[in-house]
């Protein structure tokens, strides 16, 4: 059974971001990582492979040349194949999701697609569901446990108010990983060495049939939000500070 894991390369969470040319980030001196939730997705796929030797784990990314780095990391963790849709343009989200879905469709015998519950860069929070829709597969998001028996997937997911829902679906299907799902493994030295030798599959738009790349959304401006004015440290004995704080919250800024 083929299993796909979507991997998105994003700036490190610590990264200080600055804007270049008004519409994109300055990529110089940024450290790139696999989007954190995608690591949970990958770990779950690797666990499945450990249980079932028939499982082939395909890490798939769409991005510029540097995104190869994310695939190498995924291979080092234990993915079997790395597939890179090379794309430097700022395409619409729907177009990117279609390219991801069409790439998955090229393989047969795909049982599962594991995705992170969201990416931490553009916060668009929709690619995973678009991919599922374009693949015409059911999807369960935000999962915290996962079980596969035959062609039945059972997973728990966190919903509103901390409630936990148990959901059943049939394969082929898509799940998106929450942080509680597992603890991603570290790549071993041997894994890293092995990953270097695996040849990546390169895919370009022309390999994917008729996907329209006509843009319908345009980034007009990217900018840093205004800085907040510096705050105020309260002074005095603890009792005085507490009294003053309550007074401010109640009477001055009126948030109580």
């Amino acid at each position: 059974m083929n299993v796909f894991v979507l991997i998105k390369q994003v700036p490190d969470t610590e990264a200080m971001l600055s804007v270049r040319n008004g519409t994109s980030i300055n990529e110089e001196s940024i450290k790139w990582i696999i989007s954190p939730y995608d690591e949970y997705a990958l770990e779950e796929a690797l666990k499945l492979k450990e249980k079932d030797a028939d499982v082939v784990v395909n890490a798939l990314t769409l991005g510029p040349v540097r995104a190869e780095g994310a695939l190498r990391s995924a291979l080092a963790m234990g993915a079997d194949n790395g597939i890179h849709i090379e794309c430097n343009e700022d395409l619409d989200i729907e177009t990117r999701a279609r390219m991801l879905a069409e790439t998955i469709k090229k393989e047969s015998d795909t049982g599962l697609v594991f995705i992170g519950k969201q990416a931490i860069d553009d916060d668009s929070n929709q690619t995973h569901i678009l991919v599922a829709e374009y693949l015409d597969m059911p999807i369960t998001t935000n999962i915290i446990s996962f079980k596969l028996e035959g062609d039945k997937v059972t997973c728990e997911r966190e919903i509103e108010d901390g409630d936990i829902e148990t959901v059943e679906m049939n394969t082929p299907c898509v799940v998106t990983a929450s942080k509680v799902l597992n603890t991603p493994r570290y790549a071993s030295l041997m894994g890293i060495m092995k990953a270097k030798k695996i040849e990546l599959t390169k895919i370009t738009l022309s390999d994917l049939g008729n996907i329209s790349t006509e843009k319908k959304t345009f980034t007009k401006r990217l900018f840093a939000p205004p800085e907040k004015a510096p705050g105020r440290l309260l002074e005095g004995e603890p009792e005085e500070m507490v009294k003053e704080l309550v007074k401010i919250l109640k009477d001055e800024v009126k948030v109580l």
Partner: protein
Amino acid sequence: MSNLGIYIEIKKGKIQKNVKEVVSLAKSSGNTIFGVIFTNEFQNFKDELNGFDKIINVKGNDMVFHPDSFSETIAEIIKEHEMEYFMGSYSFKAKEIFPRIAGKLNECSLVNDCVNYNFGTGIATKPVYSGKLLKEIEIKNKLKLITLRSNVFPVEDLDAGSPELTEKTISDKIRSKVINVKKSESKSIDIMDADIIVSGGRGMKEKENFQILKDLASILNAGVGASRAAVDSEFASYNMQVGQTGKVVNPKLYFAIGISGAIQHFVGMKTSKIIVAINKDSEAPIFKKADYGIIGDLFKIVPMLKDELEKVL
């Protein structure tokens, strides 16, 4: 004038509080405003539908929320009424429904979590990189799906009017089966809904100590949140985590207690109207970001704060 639909979300038997923000913004556009409400008990909600020109009441045998049936139904409605906009509050349910609608329809674009949308220019503004930056996106597609961040848009006083009511049967297309729902044991308010949040970090030292935050929260009718360090130390559960890999919250008042103020935490709460920090380390970065700070031992300050609030509230 075009047709603009709004998802009237119901949460715990009430219309979700941020729907009013969506209606207020939409109303300013001069379009015909359709409300889509999923309920078999329409009479319970009919007095809360100010601002709408038309209401579509979706009914059926199985009205339990399922993103498949809800999104399929809304996609049908959008097509039937040739809507050019469909909007909602960026809630848990919306995160499930809106991308599904986008995936089912052609010639449409979805922009989530907008902090502004200008009907004149067609430009949506949304936070990216966990709010480190803002992005302006012009949407030129025929159908624009837009979800709005909560607690950002002013709520206008809108006339009740007498919206024209039509009914629609819910789709039965469901592709995954919910076999159980386990209710959370904690009685506290979901931080996504809370106007006030009291959050604790590693400085809380032990799980049991979160009780003093819960006590404070109960006086303030607040939700209890946590830093990742507190969650990783198992003082708090993951659904309480605020930050880049937790929840992004936007309350009126946010208390960061025993939290140092790492960037990954800050981006999850920076848009709070007022931030109060309590920390014993005067060098803690949180003090650079808070509106009001108290340097001191939280185990002393928090109970004192609780007593003082009890007196005045």
